[in-house]
C-alpha cells in the first residue's frame, strides 16, 4: 500500500496528520471536553422532568428540545457522553488488560499453557461479540459495570492475538535467540525483548477496537441492557425516542448524530494511529 503522506497540509499540522484526522481529533476532543465539563455546562438537570413541556422542538430555552418526559435533550446528550465514553473506553481497557494479560501469562508459561489458553480465547472469539455480551449481561445483571465487563471479555481475544503474533514474530529474531542462548528464560525474554515491541501493536489494536466498543455499548443500551433507566446513555435515548419518532424526530436525531460523530472520529483516529505505528501491517490488520 501507498505510504505517501500529504505534505501540503501546512506548518501547523505535523507531518502525517491529514486534515481529516485533525477534524476527527477536534470532534473527539470536543466530545470529551463536553463530557468532562458536563455538570458546568448543562443548562438543566438531565433527570429533571417538565411534565408540561413534553416533546418540545428545539428552541431558545431547550436548545435541542425536550424528550417524551420533558427532559432537556441537550443536557441528557452531554451527560450521556460521560456514560458512553466511560463504558466504551472502559470496555476497551478491560479487554486490553484481560486480553494482553492472559495472553502474556499463557505465553510465559510455555507451549501447553499457550495452547490451552488460546483454545479458550478462540472459543470466545467464535461467538459474535453482541451475542456474547448479551449473554454475559443477562448473567451479570444489567448496568454500566456489567456492560463494561462484557465488552472487555468479548473484545479481549483481539489483544491476545496481537500479543501472540508479536511474541512469535520476535521470538525467531536473532537477538531473542541470542538472549535465550545466554540462558534467558521464557519470562525473561518476554519481559525484556518482546514487551517493548508489543506496545505499538496493542495500541493499534485498541485504536481499531474503540469505535466497536462504543457501538456495541450503544447497541446494548438500545436493547435495554445498559445502566438504570433514567440515567442518560445515547443508545437508550435512541430507544426511548424511537416511539416518538414521528412527532419529535429531534429527540432521536440528536443521539444518533452524536453516536455517529463519536464513532466516526474514533475510527478515523484509529486509522491514523494504525498508519503511523504500523504502516506495513496496516493492510493485514484490517483483514483481521
Amino acid at each position, binding site marked *: 500500500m501507498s505510504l505517501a503522506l500529504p505534505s501540503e497540509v501546512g506548518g501547523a499540522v505535523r507531518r502525517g496528520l491529514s486534515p481529516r484526522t485533525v477534524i476527527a481529533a477536534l470532534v473527539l476532543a470536543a466530545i470529551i471536553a463536553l463530557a468532562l465539563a458536563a455538570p458546568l455546562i448543562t443548562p438543566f438537570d438531565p433527570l429533571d422532568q417538565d411534565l408540561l413541556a413534553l416533546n418540545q422542538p428545539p428552541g431558545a430555552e431547550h436548545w435541542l428540545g425536550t424528550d417524551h418526559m420533558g427532559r432537556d435533550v441537550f443536557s441528557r446528550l452531554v451527560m450521556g457522553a460521560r456514560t458512553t465514553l466511560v463504558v466504551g473506553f472502559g470496555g476497551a481497557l478491560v479487554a486490553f488488560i484481560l486480553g494482553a494479560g492472559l495472553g502474556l501469562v499463557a505465553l510465559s508459561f510455555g507451549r501447553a499453557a499457550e495452547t490451552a489458553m488460546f483454545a479458550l480465547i478462540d472459543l470466545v472469539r*467464535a*461467538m459474535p*461479540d453482541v451475542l456474547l455480551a*448479551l*449473554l454475559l449481561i*443477562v*448473567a451479570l445483571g444489567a448496568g454500566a459495570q456489567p456492560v463494561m465487563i462484557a465488552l472487555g471479555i468479548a473484545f479481549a481475544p483481539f489483544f491476545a492475538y496481537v500479543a501472540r503474533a508479536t511474541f512469535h514474530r520476535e521470538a525467531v529474531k536473532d537477538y531473542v535467540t541470542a538472549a535465550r542462548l545466554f540462558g534467558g528464560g521464557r519470562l525473561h525474554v518476554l519481559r525484556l525483548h518482546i514487551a517493548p515491541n508489543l506496545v505499538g501493536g496493542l495500541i493499534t489494536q485498541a485504536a481499531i477496537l474503540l469505535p466497536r466498543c462504543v457501538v456495541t455499548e450503544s447497541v446494548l443500551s438500545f436493547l435495554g441492557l445498559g445502566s438504570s433507566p433514567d440515567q442518560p446513555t445515547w443508545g437508550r435515548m435512541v430507544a426511548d425516542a424511537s416511539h416518538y419518532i414521528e412527532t419529535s*424526530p429531534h429527540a432521536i436525531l440528536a443521539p444518533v448524530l452524536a*453516536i455517529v460523530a463519536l*464513532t466516526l472520529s474514533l475510527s478515523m483516529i484509529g486509522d491514523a494511529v494504525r498508519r503511523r505505528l504500523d504502516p506495513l501491517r496496516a493492510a493485514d490488520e484490517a483483514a483481521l
Partner: protein
Amino acid sequence: MKTVLHRLSPFAIALARMLVQATGIVVVVFLLARLVPGDAVDVKGLEGDLTAAQQVALRHELGLDRSVPEQLVAWSWRALKGDFGDSIRFGRPVSGMLGTALPTTLLFAALSFALGLGLALALAVGAVTTGNRVLRELVNLFSVWSIALPTFCVGVIGILVFSVWLGWLPVLGSMNLPVIIIGIDSAGVIVKPLHEELREAATSAHVRTARAKGLAPWRIALRHLLPTAVPVMLALSGLVLTSLVAGTLTMEVLFGLPGVGSLLLNAIHGRDYPVIQAAILVIAVALVVINAATDLLHRLIDPRMTS
C-alpha cells in the same frame, strides 16, 4: 495414496476444529445460562402461582435440581438426537419454535449476505478496473459506514425517512429496509480489504499485459480480477457472518421480524433455558459450519492455501 491423505488431512483438521469449537460454545453457553439468577420455575411460580412444594416438584421434573454437569450431559445427549426439549415457559417443543423462526432468519441472513458480498464485489472490481475516483471514495465510505454507523441507528433513521416522511415502506414484517441496511453494513466490512487485494492483483503482470493489449475493462474484470476476488471474498466472509449476527438481532427487534434473534432475546428475558441453549446452538453451529465450508471452498479454489 499418501498424497491423497496429505491433501485430505487439512480437511480432517478443519472438521475436528469445527466440532471442538461447536462443542466448546455449547458448554460455555450452557454454563452462562446457569449463572443467571432465577430459573424458569421461579418465572412460572410467579406468573402461575405455584406453591413452594409444586415448585420443588416441577424443578425435579425438569431436572433443574440435578448438578450442572449432569444437566449438560443429559441435554447434549438429547440435542444430538434432535430433541431440544420443551420450552419451559410455553410448554411447546423447542424444535418447533426454532422451526418457525429459522426460515425468517435464514432468508434475512441469506439476502443480506448475498447483497453484502455482491455490493462489495461490484464496488471493489468496479473501482479497480475503471480507476474511478467516485467508486474509490465509495469503497472508503462503505468501510467507514460499517465501522461508525451502528445498524440500529441507520434502521431508526431509515424508518424516519422512508416510512414516516416519505410513507413508502410498510414497517412490520417487511424485509426490504433491514436487508438493505445489513447488506450495506456487510459490504462495508469487507470492501476495503477486498479492494486492496484486487488493486495488488491489478498491478500484476498479466493484467497489465491485458490492458496493454487493449482489452475492455469489463473483460479484464471478468477474466483476470474475478478469479482473484472470489477466493479473497471467501476468506473474508467469516467477518461478514459475525457482523451479520449482531445486525440480524437488532434488525429483528427493530422491525419486529419473528426470527431466531427475537426468539433468543425473548427467551433471555423469560429465562427459558431450553430455548436459549437451542437458539445459541443453532447460531453457533451454523457459524462454525459456514466458516468451515467457506474455508474448505477457499482451499479448493485457491491452491496456495493447501500448503
